[in-house]
């Protein structure tokens, strides 16, 4: 079961040509710079634009080929538009009910839950023009979700929200995907959101897909811009093993060794994704003890790249997992880093993603 799609369109100054195959389960992130064709892709998938010669299949169902074109309203996709696109002639409540009332009986989600989650209960009787930008965006998210789509397309849904709100909403989006099995295609230019949410990643530029694969792979592929940037990061998988209630630390076992994470108690036995920003990883030759850094992994240098730049990226392997460390070239020289060399990677921060 997967989603395959193939589209081509020539807008003159912009040529769009993609051929994608993504898993039907999970969240697929679409990441790329402004004007690279993210919205164009979503619109083609939703059937809002009809590109001749296009092809799209969801699981066993063909939405578009040379002879078929399933109209948008029959595709049961949810779509969160980049500009919230609420119905200006309806109150917030009527906007929410619009999709809800068109859902086949029995599939409806609870309106109250979503309204509470997005903190829009005070806005129910307002008209959209009286809402702030972020409020409109939240209503749009609620409206799309309440339509119980089979596939949810989100075009920068959190762009106008503050970090705290994002942190409230993101776990819910994950839950939609996990618990309801609602596949999501998530467009964003915010790496943070993408790495938090995406299982699968489509990297776009100039109307083309430049990379597609699991998030951990795409993030650490040294031939791609992601691993080269100052914000490069690695994703590792781990299982929650123990909890130190005195210091409120969760102890996890990962492919790279033990990881200690401060914070709320994580459910024991749970599989989680951890994010390690490359710039938070430092390398040492000896195992330091008198430091506030808790997570230190023994690893082997795989590759040092970045040429003559003042900062270099070091890809190290701990077990079978790639970790990126961004350090100054001076340090790299001081430590005389070479492929195959044994070192210790100390990570100042580790974020739990799933």
């Amino acid at each position, binding site marked *: 079961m997967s989603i395959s799609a193939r589209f081509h369109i020539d807008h003159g100054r912009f040529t769009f040509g993609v051929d994608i195959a993504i898993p039907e389960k999970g969240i697929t992130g679409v990441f790329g710079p402004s004007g690279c064709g993210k919205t164009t892709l979503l619109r083609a998938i939703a059937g809002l634009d009809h590109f001749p010669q296009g092809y799209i299949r969801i699981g066993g169902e063909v939405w578009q080929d040379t002879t078929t074109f399933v109209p948008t309203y029959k595709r049961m996709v949810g779509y969160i538009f980049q500009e919230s696109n609420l119905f200006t002639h309806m109150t917030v409540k009527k906007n929410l009910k619009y999709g809800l009332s068109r859902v086949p009986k029995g599939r409806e989600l609870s309106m109250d839950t979503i309204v509470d989650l997005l903190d829009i209960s005070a806005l129910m009787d307002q008209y959209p023009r009286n809402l702030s930008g972020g409020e409109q965006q939240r209503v749009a998210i609620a409206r*799309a979700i309440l339509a119980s789509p089979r596939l949810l397309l989100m075009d920068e849904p959190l762009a106008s929200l503050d970090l705290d709100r994002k942190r409230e909403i993101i776990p819910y989006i994950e839950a939609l995907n996990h618990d309801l099995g609602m596949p999501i295609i998530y467009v964003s230019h915010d790496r943070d959101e993408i790495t938090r949410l995406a299982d699968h990643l489509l990297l776009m530029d100039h109307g083309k897909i430049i990379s597609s694969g699991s998030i951990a792979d795409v993030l650490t592929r040294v031939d791609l811009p992601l691993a080269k940037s100052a914000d490069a990061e690695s994703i590792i998988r781990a299982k929650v093993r123990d909890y130190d209630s005195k210091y409120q630390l969760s102890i996890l076992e990962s492919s790279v060794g033990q990881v200690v994470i401060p914070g709320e108690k994580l459910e024991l036995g749970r599989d989680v994704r951890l994010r390690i920003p490359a710039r938070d990883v430092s390398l040492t030759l000896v195992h330091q003890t008198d430091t506030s850094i808790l997570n230190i992994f023994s690893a082997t240098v795989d590759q040092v790249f970045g040429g003559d730049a003042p900062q270099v990226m070091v890809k190290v392997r701990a077990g079978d997992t790639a970790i990126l460390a961004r350090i100054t070239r001076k340090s790299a020289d001081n430590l005389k880093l070479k492929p195959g060399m044994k070192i210790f990677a100390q990570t100042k921060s580790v974020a739990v993603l799933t």
Partner: protein
Amino acid sequence: MIFTEADLVALFVTVKLAFISTLVLLLCGTPLAWWLSRSKWRFRFLIEAIVALPLVLPPTVLGFYLLLGLSPSGPIGSLSSSLGLGSLAFTFQGLVVGSVLYSMPFVVQPLQDGFRNVGISRLEAAAVLGASPIDRFFSVAVPVARPAFVTASVLGFAHTLGEFGVVLMIGGNIPGETQVVSIAIYDHVEMLHYSKAHLLSGLLLLLSFLTLTLVYRHRGFKVVAS
């Protein structure tokens, strides 16, 4: 009593005619306007021009041509006869046909403008929420274009109220059937019954004024902010 019975009958016929015509105008004009506002057909403008065309003929002359068309030997007349409807000339139904034809541009054009302003993005939002084209039309396009419906109805209704030339020609000024209040007022003026004409005009103006103020006061104004 200050109004003759014939006046009141004429008033009743007029209001009935205006209501039915406006209804028919909206029923025919709405899909046409919708199509015109969405169509990408190259020669759409020809249809637009044809809709506006009846307007340029003097009403009596238009009425004359309608009369020719509606007469048993005319194209519409022979059609309606073969359908067993008989001739429409000098009947109330005939008046409705005439009024509708003549007021069509006043309904189609404002609606077309209104629909065009609905904007594609709202309709797309409705489509992804599972609304079929018909559903979108009624749940999004119609409410958003509500002021245009008000304009179209007011112009269509008022124009039918005052319509005279076409109605006189194809209606034959038959009291109780095709004599409308505009003709009644005209007759009063012709017969030099000025005070009766003033009274009846006054009544018509008053009723229209009341209706119009009611309509305008309650027209949806808030929804249009874009």
